[in-house]
């Protein structure tokens, strides 16, 4: 019989529909995988509560496992522990950068209502001279930045902790 580790390996082939360069394993949204009552359970945690990609990801997981000959699988949505950007793998961060999205950086005091926006390096020219255009970008998980050096507008994957 297939093992949980093998299933995790298969899921490395399922990409995030909104950031196709990342797999759902890179993104860190797949939690426990286990066998229960003749069914493989894949635990999935949302990045943001309203993330519209979750249903698509669920369908993609089931299709991928079906392809691999596993038809007795189910996706279970869990909220706890809450997803954090810390779960994006090192490889995932590298892929994001190459794709033109600045990966999350450690932000100063997250609980402070007013703090300067984080210093984010431009994914194109690597300059630290960038500015935040808007706290909300093309998806809930991103902010919109622009590089003052090369003028490239880019997405920044917001730190969520």
């Amino acid at each position: 019989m297939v093992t949980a580790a093998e299933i995790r390996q298969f899921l490395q082939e399922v990409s995030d529909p909104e950031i196709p360069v990342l797999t759902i394993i890179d993104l860190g949204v797949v939690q426990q995988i286990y066998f229960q009552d003749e069914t493989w359970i894949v635990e999935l945690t949302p990045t943001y509560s309203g993330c519209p990609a979750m249903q698509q990801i669920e369908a993609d997981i089931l299709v991928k496992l079906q392809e691999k000959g596993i038809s007795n699988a189910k996706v279970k949505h869990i909220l706890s522990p809450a997803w954090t950007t810390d779960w994006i793998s090192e490889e995932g961060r590298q892929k994001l950068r190459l794709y033109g999205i600045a990966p999350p950086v450690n932000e100063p005091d997250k609980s402070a209502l007013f703090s300067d926006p984080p210093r984010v390096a431009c994914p194109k020219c690597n300059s630290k001279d960038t500015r935040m255009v808007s706290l909300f970008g093309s998806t809930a998980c991103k902010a919109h930045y622009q590089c003052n050096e090369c003028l490239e507008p880019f997405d920044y994957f917001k730190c969520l902790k």
Partner: protein
Amino acid sequence: MQDPALFEYVLRLSDDSLILGQRLGEWCGHGPILEEDIALTNISLDLIGQAISLYDFAAELEGAGRNHDQLAYLRFENEYKNVLLVEQPNGDFAMTILRQFFFDAFRLPLYEALMQSPVEQLAAIAAKSVKETRYHLKHTSEWVIRMGDGTEESHERAQAAIDHLWRYASELFYEDAHDQTLQAAGLVPKMAGIQAKWSETVTAVLNEATLSIPTNNWKFDGGREGRHSEHMGYILSDLQYMQRAYPNMEW
């Protein structure tokens, strides 16, 4: 139903999120600038996402076989328990931002407190939502300051929004027998503590924005008991139209 008080409590949280999310969604394609159009609808999406998790939990507590869609789309007006603040019309941009700011300043300390709740699912939803709410409050606070401490016109509009919405603020801290039952059991926080934190945030931001806090104590409430303002029916007719016209439709 095992715990009617908890069901009622979760339903109130759900309805606040859904109705405010619906209101913000009306800005889609109408924002004053593209970035703000996107920000408002992003916040809307977070709120509707939180509403889905909350309705799922409410449905589980109810144990009557209803799901989140049925709770969201197939109840009558007097069965919705949201506060009046969230159903107020968008008005101008200042009105929308101030409404959101008052709400975020309430939701953040509430979620922070609920993270400690022994009701596991409620604590999990709060832990998930608190991170999103922090961004919302940051965003609306910055706008309140920019408008208040901006031009004469932006200041005037922000102040007018505060003066108009102030009457709906105290309802956020409404408590009745349901809340008291849950508070006595140590399941949810007392509203007095949440209100103190709300006042602290609101005072700090309005001071920074050179805006003044109204001195009148005129209060409106009724939403928590299902008595709504005249705006609620219009929201529901928009929200429920598809499910009422084509029962159980999906797309």
